[in-house]
């Protein structure tokens, strides 16, 4: 029994390690290729690592395409959308969780419906609206919609969290004379902090990685985000794989850093979203 158990344990470790190696293989290949000369990149049988690390590939990528500008543009979009999402989704969720108002059920059903609505369905009229406002080719279309609840899913998720906090806490604060906004800020928000961090991280990654929005709304190269800038880079450097891979590494580094800093919250957040649904 215990011998069979030990054997299965070894098999589990082996399978997991093999799977992990396969998952990491593309990342390894990316880094490897980004540090080679073009000649080394094309060698067969392939080299496992560069004979000398060519950091100049990164300089070449940075000098041919203004990635620092794209980085700044991405931040200009990401920071206000994350803020907007945190503020307006939690306020809306508080409204749904703690107050009775006419048509609340109807509006909540709409929130649920909006979660599974593919964004493509409402894309055309939204685009026409922005072009009528002469705001295409600005950052507004990528930021402003998030000041309206910051995404139905986030409202839903935070509402579920507010519902787990006993109402006695609100009542006690109210007897002490606290107003609703203060109850929300000082009593309830601290309780749902892990969920808020998760929502903020999700929004960060969503915006950072978003390609469709910038593709449709941004035309001028000086407004490109990192995702859009890299796409144009692919178009013009699709034969210089070492430089292209260096550019790709540049784009990947910021989210990886954020991931490792916020990892604990992130995994918790993913878990909670799956369980709360």
């Amino acid at each position: 029994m215990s011998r069979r158990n030990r054997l299965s344990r070894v098999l589990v470790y082996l399978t997991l390690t093999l799977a992990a190696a396969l998952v990491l293989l593309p990342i390894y290949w990316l880094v490897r290729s980004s540090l080679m000369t073009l000649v080394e990149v094309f060698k067969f049988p392939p080299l496992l690592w560069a004979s000398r690390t060519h950091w100049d590939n990164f300089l070449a990528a940075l000098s041919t395409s203004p990635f620092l500008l794209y980085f700044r543009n991405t931040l200009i979009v990401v920071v206000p959308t994350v803020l907007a999402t945190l503020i307006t989704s939690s306020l809306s969720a508080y409204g749904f969780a703690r107050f009775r108002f006419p048509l609340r059920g109807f509006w909540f059903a709409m929130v649920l419906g909006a979660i599974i609505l593919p964004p493509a369905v409402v894309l055309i009229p939204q685009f026409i609206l922005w072009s009528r406002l002469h705001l295409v080719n600005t950052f507004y279309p990528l930021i402003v919609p998030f000041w309206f609840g910051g995404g139905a899913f986030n409202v839903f998720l935070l509402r579920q969290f507010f519902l787990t906090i006993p109402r006695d806490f609100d009542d006690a604060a109210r007897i002490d004379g606290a107003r609703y906004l203060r109850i929300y800020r000082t009593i309830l928000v601290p309780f749902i902090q892990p969920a808020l961090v998760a929502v903020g991280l999700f929004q960060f990654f969503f915006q950072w990685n978003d390609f469709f929005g910038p593709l449709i709304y941004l035309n001028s190269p000086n407004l490109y985000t990192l995702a859009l800038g890299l796409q144009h880079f692919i178009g013009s450097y699709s034969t210089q794989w070492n430089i292209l891979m260096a550019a790709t590494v540049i784009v990947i580094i910021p989210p990886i850093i954020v991931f490792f800093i916020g990892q604990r919250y992130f995994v918790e957040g993913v878990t909670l979203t799956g369980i709360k649904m």
Partner: protein
Amino acid sequence: MNRASKPRGARRREALIGYLFASPVILGLVIWVMAPMVGSLVISFTDWNVLTAPHWRGLLNYVGMFTTDYFFANSLLVTVYYVALNTALTFVYSLVLALLLNWKIRGQGIYRSIFYLPAIVPLVASSALWLWLFNPDFGLFNQILLALGLHKLTWLVGQTTVVPSLVLMSVWGGAGNTIVIFLAALQGVPRPFLEAVEIDGGSWWHKFWAVTWPLISPVSFFNIVVGLINSFQIFTQSYIMTSGGPNNSSLFYVYLMYRYGFERNEMGNAAALSWILFLMVSALGLILFRWSREWVHYEGAAA
């Protein structure tokens, strides 16, 4: 405090404050969802090209889609193929890895982070990377096949291999969330239940089928729904890596809509496509929830 017994003034005040707090998302639903849906329905009955005044075409855009538009039928076909393959493979792959991770193993957190890592790589970046991996002449995959003495594959440039190749990339990049959610669900399965099966002499398969599977079924359902909806949105990979080719075999639904709307300025057709998408997703949602009653087991729910 009994809420129903509140005086009328207090109730009205509560309603007002409630609306005030919920107003961001309510306004958002009206401005960014409901009004655009109506707008898109109206546009779908016209031949609007943004530059000149639209003409009313009634249902002609829709009739055209279903009768003469080769691209529409083709994009539906390849999208359904991609969605089915991607959802099924991601589901199985994630569940198997989560089951393995759920053994009380050392370094569980590290494995989990590794499996999650690809999910945070921006889609444009992974498209650049996988273009390189799939490269027919110098890409890693064909180099491995050659080193093993096997034939090269066409990957993205072959009409029959392009969708499976994109699925491979999507499983790699998209399974992170699914694995983490499955793992959390598995950790919530009570040990005594599993031990009871063990005492009765049941194998690991009995434990999985009789205890684990029913208990995690709500989470399985969640993962299937999310997987289907996300797969339906595929656009970036084919836009960057294949331009919809070869021979339109990766011209997915949203990509076709993008072509109509933003490359050909045929807003009427693009809007019709968006409404057909909406109706299809709604129908799919209904079917899924019907189907879920047959196998999803909610703990403590009255049947």
